[in-house]
């Protein structure tokens, strides 16, 4: 998986490939860095994200909680339908902000 983080008014994370048990370790490091910084808005762009397992879902939960604790916002955009289906099945779509 490829992770790209762009800082600006919003911090934009592009994930490309599979967010699974193995690749989630790298993503967790990025999240830890982002949450430690003075960041108000984080956007995850899922245009190229093809797969997510529970290890990845846990990290979305970490980001959501972490940004809320900082009074910031976390949004997901351009998610593929298969990923949205998984967020619906697990009830994650009820508390995540998902843009189409």
């Amino acid at each position, binding site marked *: 998986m490829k992770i790209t983080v762009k800082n600006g008014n919003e911090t934009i994370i592009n994930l490309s490939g599979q967010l699974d048990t*193995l690749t989630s370790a790298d993503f967790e490091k990025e999240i830890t860095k982002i949450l430690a910084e003075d960041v108000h808005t984080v956007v995850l762009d899922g245009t190229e994200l093809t797969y997510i397992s529970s290890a990845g879902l846990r990290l979305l939960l970490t980001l959501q909680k972490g940004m809320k604790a900082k009074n910031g916002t976390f949004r997901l955009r351009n998610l593929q339908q298969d990923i949205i289906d998984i967020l619906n*099945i*697990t009830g994650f779509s009820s508390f995540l902000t998902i843009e189409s």
Partner: protein
Amino acid sequence: MINTLHIKNELEQLTRLYEFLDLHASAYGLEEQLTMQIKLALEEVVTNVILYAYPDKKDQDIRIDMNYGNKQLTIVITDKGTPFNPLEMKEPDITLPPEERPIGGLGIYLVKQLMTEVTYSRSSGKNILTMTKDIH
């Protein structure tokens, strides 16, 4: 025909599991969305086995058998580790807000939602988890 993969109880071996699934799913002609769902179920179950079946032991075997026929995909995961029925794990409350969400339990919940049927048995010192998915 049954396709079989043996892996060791190391997380790095998940890469071989993904390759195994991609290879055969494409040979069976399964569509992409279905392959993703099956990969997810397989990853969750096998990750659990890797992490918990053989505490403190390395180089232990996990066997994955996969078969497709009569519009049904069957996957059997077998290990010789500690008796453990993942289906007995408490189901997460998926209506809880993020603050109250526990860390565990989501994986097996997903497996049950994505597969048509999941059964566990313990036989001859082996944990045997069987998952089937009806393909329409």
